[in-house]
């Protein structure tokens, strides 16, 4: 499917939706309405949007810790995504998951995970299942630049390439792993994703703030996977505008680095000017932005007004199947 103006407008809406969502989450995290660590992806909206516009609900998605946008665009009830982050019983995982552990299996969101890189091994299994059953769905797994140090990733890439499973590694290179830059802690040729070549796996490096480029690279990788040509890695070069977590002052970043990215490479501004050049009225785009904010405000309302889990839920779902010897509540 090509990227016509309607599709680009939809992407514009989604990128705004993610940004407003993250801003609201940040606000309510700081207010104390949201428990736990929150990792925001403001500045990285094109990566999430471009990738998700290629995938369908039948494809398996493994988002990482910085992936609220993936959960929003998977086809889930968006208010339930928000409620989950607020630890509410109405959330997708009944308030047991939270920001870093959200799944919605109905729409192929197989759950994010707070052990960085763990999902790279797990995703091998859903991809193998597609091959096992001769189905044409693919698996997409998200990792950051820092996570490229994890052994599970390398074991996974080696086996995925050998088994030729339909798996796409989406490496969101946002410049930092907390405070550490990739070149300070890793050894690689020019790009982190060059390592894929060592596993005989195709890879591409893409401007992650250009949603069209992200979409096109993802489409190429997905086509290869659906055609039985095995896994790929795409490296999306981007930047997170905020600290590692909501509340991190990020004093490890030099001078005007953030300002430069905001001014010169904002993915939303970038798409807006492309759409204006194609003749889309400013008013139309403003309206999309307003609608996105409204939709997010409704999600927050829903989350704020939802109940917390019940105490009985503490021991619910520990075992998928109870054994004869187990008493109630165990």
């Amino acid at each position: 499917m090509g990227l016509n103006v309607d599709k680009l407008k939809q992407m514009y809406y989604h990128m705004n939706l993610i940004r407003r969502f993250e801003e609201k989450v940040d606000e309510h995290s700081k207010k104390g309405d949201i428990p736990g660590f929150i990792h925001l992806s403001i500045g990285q909206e094109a990566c999430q949007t471009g990738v998700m516009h290629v995938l369908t609900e039948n494809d398996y998605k493994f988002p990482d810790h910085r992936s609220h946008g993936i959960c929003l665009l998977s086809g889930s009830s968006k208010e339930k995504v928000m409620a989950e982050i607020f630890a509410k019983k109405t959330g997708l995982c009944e308030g047991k998951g939270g920001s870093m552990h959200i799944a919605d299996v109905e729409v192929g969101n197989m759950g994010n995970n707070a052990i960085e890189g763990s999902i790279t091994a797990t995703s091998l299994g859903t991809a193998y299942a597609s091959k096992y059953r001769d189905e044409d769905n693919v698996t997409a797994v998200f990792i950051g630049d820092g996570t490229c140090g994890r052994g599970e990733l390398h074991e996974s890439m080696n086996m995925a390439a050998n088994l030729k499973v339909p798996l796409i590694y989406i490496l969101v290179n946002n410049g930092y792993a907390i405070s550490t830059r990739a070149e300070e802690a890793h050894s690689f040729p020019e790009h982190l994703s060059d390592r894929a070549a060592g596993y005989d796996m195709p890879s591409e490096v893409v401007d992650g703030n250009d949603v069209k480029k992200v979409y096109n690279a993802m489409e190429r990788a997905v086509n290869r996977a659906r055609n039985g040509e095995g896994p790929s890695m795409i490296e999306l070069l981007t930047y997170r505008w905020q600290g590692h977590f909501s509340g991190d002052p990020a004093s490890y970043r030099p001078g005007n680095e953030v300002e430069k990215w905001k001014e010169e490479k904002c993915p939303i501004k970038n798409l807006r000017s492309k759409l204006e050049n194609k003749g889309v009225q400013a008013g139309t785009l403003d309206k999309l932005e307003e609608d996105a904010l409204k939709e997010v405000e409704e999600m927050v309302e829903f989350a704020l007004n939802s109940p917390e889990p019940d105490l009985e839920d503490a021991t619910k779902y520990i075992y998928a199947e109870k054994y004869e010897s187990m008493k109630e509540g165990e």
Partner: protein
Amino acid sequence: MRQLKFSQALNEALHQEMERDEDVFVLGQDVGKMGGDFGVTKGLWKKYGEKRVIDTPLSEAAMLGLSNGAAFTGLRPVVEIMFADFITECFDQIVNNSAKAHYMFAGQLTAPIVLRTANGGGFRAAYHHSQNPEAWLMNIPGITVVAPSTPYEAKGLLTASIRSENPIVFFEHKMLYSTSGEVPEENYELPLGKAKVKKEGTDVTVIASMKMCEYALKAAKELEKEEISLEVIDPRTLVPFDKETIFDSVAKTNRLVVAYEAPKTGGYGAEIAGLVNDEMFEFLKAPVKRVASLDSPVAFSPKLEDHILPGYEEVLNGIKEVIDY
């Protein structure tokens, strides 16, 4: 009835389950062409092909990851980890994914995997091929730990494990592989989470699993000569633990010995002793006795290994101590 070796009984369970259910598949190092290091996967590759019997590289984390992900979609992977010592390499996937997927995603996912692995000493294989890591797995809510001691149980418990919706770590004591026993030809399940009274008695309860069960039964025979009656219980499933069977027995005998091959501190028997102390204190005529390995790595020298790991003599002496208390 027909006799099979422990390893053959496991092999038969795998053959029958793969025949019964196309979603069952096997992966591990050398499980295909070669049929596994201990021959447990013999003949599967020839019969079911490489899609259902995968020879993997030495990538334990990825093997467990593949198993978890496939299980999330409804497949039933049985992953062989050649030696239980290598469970260290699987830990992230077991602890953080297999055990928690069902819970943290509110029941949306299950990880019905079976991790089969060879544990235990006696092979003179030392530090990295002799450990008994069952206690490492016992502190992870969500994981079921299974440990058979006879060929009959090996087959029935493996069949039940493959059919279970829960993630299971299945220990196969390597000194049991070549032991023989009666095994029915048809496929059958034995209940998980249920202990088995292997011998009824009235004076002392001995809980012993895997290789230790053999020693306990031998001690029971020996002590019969002195008119001491042991009740020997094989827990068969270490987690979740069948409290009822053990409590009923202790209520009758008022004495308890727990024999296990792992290091004493923080081991399986420590947990049982704690439980019985919590809930059965007034029934006890003697402190719960743990017969276990020294708190030491499993040494290489046969003389040292035999000293470190508990054997028949240690079990017998432990029981006598409780009687003489």
